[in-house]
């Protein structure tokens, strides 16, 4: 424990490890396991036998590189070959071949899969472990019922209940329950066995004596099965026992409800003190008996109930398990296919080879389906590098076999003491899935059987030496674990010190000598996103949650900047995200340009291709900039090029902005944010966005669609960017409505005949009007930018059609503007409300204009004081050109270690740079600001400093939308919702009142005449629009107007229609 003896220090494991380990487990173990389960297949006469040798499988080198797969919208996969043997007994022929089983999508170095050109990720799932669990719940009459639930490997569950009269039931469906003896005998045990193995035979006997007929069932297994079947399916009448009935029961009930699996076997063995071998994956009568025994004990208060939310009762289903399941499924399909082929071959008496027996389609399609549609295979969130990392480390309670967002109770969503060090207590999504999508803590790993483990330092009595131990969630509860926030201040008398420690889900103050373990690391309990928040301990957890979520929404800026105040984890996050280019080998750099870095390693040249202006899944821009110089020697693992949102290998999502917490003319009311023009013209918040627009050419009944430049009836101005092939030219600047790809869809001739102008033309000249309709790809509303790439992809479809897809990539450079969202790391978020010239902003005493004005009222109720603490060292660091890395909750050597250096640093900065205003003793941390418009000193000193603020992906450009007319919902006849559907807002009764009250005469006139029930006027308007003439004024009032007048009259004002002439002010009255 001595300071200089910190041998136990270790590096943080790579953030993507959970994914790689999972995939490796699948490749190394899962594949072989499933392949070995693949049965020998024989035909009915047992003449042909085919077999796979799974342990000698081979994965071929992928045919295409990952980058090309992305480019050509293909799947990055490798072919799986397995040696196969085919024995033909009658001809004594043995054929051995290596057969292609199918394509297996491969995980790339970033822990993701590329499927159809799109990065996808498989999220880890948290499930209840199979096993047996005891709980109590009151029934309707208030009597506590003790139930034990057996959860099978498939997620099915059956319950054993003890009711108030100590009768024991097995609940088979929501309403039906059967007596335990029946279940037991149906499972194959007889009365003698039961009574022998039970601790409380009396209760059992009382169960039996209660109802005479039960004894009968117990005599024979058949009767019991029949009775069981009757109860299960509520079939009445006489049933005859048959083998098929038994089989069905086994398939429907026993397999689904009682298959425990390997992991599930452990649990009853442990809990019920059984000694059943691990490969017995079904629950046996002994299990049920022991479970019943335990229930009785629980009923009498001798057993312990289980906490269902405890992590020890949950397991992680990782990529390995999901892929293995899918692989098993695929092999099942393959097995059927092989059987079919063998059958066919024997019928035709031809000799198959292993190669014709095994087809690759089952595996390929199964995996394609899995990656395409499984809820846990998700579209990789790629807004910034952090988002990718966090997505890889996500743990989801949702998905097949899990919970659903609507039904999950709040207990499940809550934090549990067992999450400590394994699942982050802060980071989760907001809204419907709150608490159901969690994040893995930094140091946690997946142990055997899918349990989550967290490392601790073991403190041994004898020696001072420490070593690291990984403990699963159940295991650490019986040890006293010091939180590690508060280590020895005085090394000599450590024993006298009391430290906060965890023991059996409680926080206690325990003397050091009684401690078994201590945690390794101050933010061991948090996820990556949360541990990037400095001054976390001064923050409300809700805001920290928002902060960590909003960091994931940060857009990579065009000139990123390291944070002045950070936690020290930034340096690990960037390289682990895979966004930066890292030297795979040491060597000397020989050549650099924007697209490539080559280095020579022992005479060989190694090239690293850089990513240049590529689109991410979230339309942000991925771009790598070289960070090394020519002639430099690099080591393995050194950063060669910075990717998006990284600087010098550190994650840098935002900018250090000079903020002042003060109100400014109401422009920062309710979280609005006022910024200086400097952020606009100095490109401080400028980000790149790459939008992809795509179009597919299909085969129609009239022939194929054509991509061409010759589009009839279209303004040449809109077509100006097209090249000879009908594709938009690279580098052209396109705006809304411009044609990107010219496409013609053939149309049946008769249809064009029906159009009046077509008929006219044919009548006069006898020519056929073009038999094609234009179906061009245009830039949608709001889109504009530079065309940087056009990809024309030919896709071989299943049916032999050549579908062609054209993707056009449009690059946008977006400066910050009113309506964009910016946020701090501590959950302080807001929308830009006004952009002021720099001379109008309040300024510091040295003349520097503030860049951003935040509302101080936004701090009080949100309790994110961290933002204040953050900005003060930020200011000091900015002046002294220093960066601070402050570990949150780091009180190992000092109380309030993070808060203490704030003022001293500020004082130091003021001394060092001879700027007395930086630290004024009367109001430390606050400055007297001066209003830039008037030159007056502001009334109160204002907290100013450099805060690190990212710009978020929620930008007005994507959201702003207006509609004059558009689609309506069929049922309600109200406008649709959402920008994507060109939705709108219904102008209802109250809105019309507002217009009436405000007196917008022209709109009202329109609404009461042309747009209302004045049928005649509406027809006239239509005619006028078509002919292009002026819109006529209706002569008479429509009924709706009359109604309005009547309504007004019923309020009793005098209603007259008067015309006042300007010249003589003569009033000319007229009755309405």
């Amino acid at each position, binding site marked *: 424990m001595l300071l200089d003896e910190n041998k136990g220090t270790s590096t943080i494991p790579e953030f993507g490890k959970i994914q790689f380990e999972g995939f490796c487990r699948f490749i190394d173990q899962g594949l072989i396991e499933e392949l070995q389960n693949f049965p020998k297949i024989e035909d009915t006469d047992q003449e042909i036998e085919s077999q796979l040798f799974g342990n000698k499988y081979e994965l071929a080198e992928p045919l295409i590189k990952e980058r090309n797969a992305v480019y050509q919208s293909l799947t990055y996969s490798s072919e799986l070959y397995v040696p196969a043997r085919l024995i033909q007994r009658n001809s004594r022929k043995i054929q051995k071949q290596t057969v292609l089983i199918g394509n297996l999508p491969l995980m790339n170095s970033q822990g993701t899969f590329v499927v159809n050109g799109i990065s996808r990720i498989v999220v880890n799932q948290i499930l209840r472990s199979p096993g047996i669990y005891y709980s109590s719940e009151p029934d309707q009459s208030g009597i506590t019922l003790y139930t034990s639930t057996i959860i099978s490997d498939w997620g099915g569950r059956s319950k054993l209940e003890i009711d108030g009269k100590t009768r024991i039931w097995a609940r088979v469906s929501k309403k039906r329950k059967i007596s335990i003896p029946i279940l037991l005998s149906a499972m194959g045990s007889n009365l003698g066995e039961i009574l022998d193995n039970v601790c409380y035979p009396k209760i059992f006997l009382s169960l039996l004596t209660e109802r005479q007929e039960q004894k009968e069932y117990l005599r024979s297994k058949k009767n019991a099965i029949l009775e069981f079947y009757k109860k299960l399916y509520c079939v009445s009448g006489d049933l005859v026992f048959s083998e098929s009935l038994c089989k069905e029961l086994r398939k429907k009930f026993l397999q689904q409800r009682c298959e425990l699996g390997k992991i599930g076997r452990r649990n009853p063995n442990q809990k019920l003190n059984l000694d059943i071998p691990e490969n017995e994956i079904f629950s046996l009568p002994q299990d049920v008996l022991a479970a019943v025994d335990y229930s009785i004990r629980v009923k009498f208060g001798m057993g312990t109930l289980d906490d269902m939310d405890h992590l020890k009762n949950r397991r992680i289903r990782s990529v390995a398990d999901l892929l293995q399941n899918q692989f098993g499924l695929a092999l099942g399909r393959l097995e059927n296919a092989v059987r079919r082929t063998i059958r066919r071959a024997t019928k035709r008496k031809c000799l198959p080879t292993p190669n014709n027996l095994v087809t690759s389609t089952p595996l390929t399609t199964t995996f394609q389906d899995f990656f395409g549609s499984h809820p846990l295979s998700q579209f990789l969130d790629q807004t910034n590098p952090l988002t990718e990392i966090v997505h890889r480390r996500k743990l989801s309670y949702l998905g097949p076999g899990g919970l659903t967002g609507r039904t999950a109770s709040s207990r499940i969503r809550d934090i549990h003491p067992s999450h400590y060090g394994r699942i982050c207590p802060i980071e989760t999504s907001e809204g419907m899935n709150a608490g159901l999508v969690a994040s893995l803590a930094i140091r946690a790993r997946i142990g055997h059987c899918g349990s989550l483990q967290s490392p601790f330092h073991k403190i041994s009595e004898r020696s001072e030496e420490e070593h690291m131990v990984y403990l699963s969630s159940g295991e650490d509860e019986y040890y006293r674990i010091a939180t590690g926030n508060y280590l020895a201040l005085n090394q000599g008398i450590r024993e006298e010190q009391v430290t906060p420690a965890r023991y059996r889900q409680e926080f206690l103050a325990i003397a050091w000598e009684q401690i078994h373990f201590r945690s390794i690391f101050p933010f061991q309990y948090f996820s990556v996103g949360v541990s990037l928040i400095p001054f976390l301990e001064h923050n409300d957890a809700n805001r920290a949650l928002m902060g960590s979520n909003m960091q994931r929404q940060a857009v990579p800026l065009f000139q990123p900047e390291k944070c002045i105040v950070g936690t020290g984890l930034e340096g690990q996050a960037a390289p682990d995200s895979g966004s930066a280019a890292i030297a795979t080998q040491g060597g000397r750099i020989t050549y*650099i340009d924007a*697209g490539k870095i080559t280095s020579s390693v022992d005479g060989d040249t190694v090239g690293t291709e850089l990513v240049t*202006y590529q689109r991410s899944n979230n339309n942000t821009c991925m771009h790598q900039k070289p960070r090394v110089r020519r002639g430099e020697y690099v080591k393995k693992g050194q950063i060669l090029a910075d990717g998006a949102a990284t600087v010098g290998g550190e994650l840098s999502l935002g900018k250090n902005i000079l903020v002042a917490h003060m109100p400014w003319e109401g422009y920062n009311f309710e979280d609005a944010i006022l910024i200086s023009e400097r952020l606009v013209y100095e490109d401080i918040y400028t980000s790149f966005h790459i939008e992809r627009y795509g179009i597919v050419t299909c085969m129609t009944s009239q022939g194929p669609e054509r991509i061409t430049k010759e589009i009839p009836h279209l303004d040449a101005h809109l077509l100006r960017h097209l090249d000879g092939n009908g594709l938009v030219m690279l580098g052209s600047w396109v705006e809304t409505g411009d044609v990107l790809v010219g496409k013609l869809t053939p149309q049946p001739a008769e249809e064009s005949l029906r159009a009046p102008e077509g008929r006219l033309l044919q009548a006069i000249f006898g020519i056929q009007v073009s038999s094609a309709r234009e179906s061009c790809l245009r830039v949608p509303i709001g889109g504009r930018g530079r065309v940087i790439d056009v990809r024309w992809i030919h896709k071989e479809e299943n049916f032999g059609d050549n579908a062609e897809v054209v993707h056009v990539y449009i690059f946008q450079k977006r*400066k910050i503007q009113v309506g964009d969202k910016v946020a701090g790391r501590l959950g302080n978020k807001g929308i830009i409300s006004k952009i002021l010239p720099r001379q109008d902003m309040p300024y510091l005493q040295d*003349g520097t204009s503030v860049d951003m004005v935040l509302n101080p009222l936004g701090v009080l109720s949100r309790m994110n004081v961290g933002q204040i603490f953050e900005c003060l060292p930020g200011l000091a660091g900015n002046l002294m050109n220093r960066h601070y890395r402050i570990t949150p909750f780091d009180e190992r050597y000092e109380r309030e270690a993070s808060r203490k250096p704030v003022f001293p640093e500020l004082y130091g900065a003021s001394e060092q740079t001879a700027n007395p205003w930086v630290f004024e003793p009367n109001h430390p941390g606050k400055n007297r600001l001066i209003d830039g418009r008037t030159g007056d000193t502001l009334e109160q000193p204002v907290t100013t400093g450099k805060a690190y603020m990212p710009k978020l992906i929620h930008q007005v450009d994507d959201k702003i939308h207006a509609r004059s007319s558009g689609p309506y919902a069929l049922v309600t006849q109200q406008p649709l919702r959402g920008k994507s559907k060109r939705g709108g807002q219904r102008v209802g009764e109250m809105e019309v009142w507002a217009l009436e009250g405000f007196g917008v005469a022209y709109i009202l006139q329109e609404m009461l005449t042309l747009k209302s029930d004045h049928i005649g006027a509406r027809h006239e308007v239509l005619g006028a629009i078509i002919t292009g003439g002026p819109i006529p004024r209706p002569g008479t009032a429509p009924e709706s107007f009359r109604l309005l007048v009547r309504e007004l009259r019923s309020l009793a004002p005098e209603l007259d229609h008067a015309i006042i002439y300007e010249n003589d002010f003569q009033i000319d009255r007229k009755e309405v």
Partner: protein
Amino acid sequence: MIRDEISVSTQTPRWRCIGSGADSKRLHYGRFALSPLRKGQASTIGIAMRRALLGEIEGTCITHAKLEKVTHEYSAIIGIEESVHDILINLKEIVLRSDPYGTREASICIVGPRNVTAQDIILPPSVRIIDATQHIASLTKSITFDIRLWIEKDRGYRIQSPKNYQDGIFPIDAVFMPVRNANYSIHSYGNGNDIQEILFLEIWTNGSLAPREALYRASRNLIDLFIPFLRAEEQNIDGMDNQNGSNMPSFSFSNISADMERMEEEVAFKHIFIDQSELPPRVYNCLGRVNIHTLSDLLNYSQEDLMRIGHFGKKSVEQVSEVLQKHFAVDLPKNKFQIH
């Protein structure tokens, strides 16, 4: 009251440069003092000067660049470490100094491999580079790096949309603000009613302008903004002067500035011919007969003088002054007295 003003103004405020320096070629610093000022004046001048320094000073910038064989700015050129966009951003940062207005052309033509810096820009004669070491691009292969640049002088900043540019011309967002930061502080001294103030002005520029020059420009620009008031008042006050029959020395400053203004205008007006304005031909002919061809010729005449020209009535004078007011924002003086 006017007497009082005269007695105070004998102690005219003077400015001094207290300190100056350059942290780097692109960061110049200057500190100036103006004293003595009467109570409250320092603040008036200070805030106005700060705002003028930050917002009103003109600068020179590269506004467009043309690269050959580049389809768009988000592409990489083989043999150059930076992407085209990065090069454009580097060009945006380059600090220039130029005297005249209008668009100038410059170019870079370099064969690699080498680093291209600001000193490699071939500039037109009137434009100067401030920091020759500013980085533009690093060529890593032996390729020719050929860029044509357009340089403009303006104030504020300009964000350009690439909408109307083609053929490899890329607009660069220009920031024409040479003053990086400006600050002022006020120190008062004296006691009782006799409080006087010193105004300290601190100016940081980007090097294209010495702080002192920036101060000069800012005051010029401020004065320019006040000229409309001066003109309007001059007329009234001159009218008053004629009544009082006395000339006031306190207006000497404004007269001087007006003089300078006038000189500058005269140069410009020499090149403007009156036939470009929308005068009726009759008026034009009349003026031509007395050899008034350019605007500066015309401005030598007062309204009274014009009336003396043959066939030139009151209506014609009105027309002329209306046109002058409309197109050039100049008034013809009523009588000869006002022309010096």
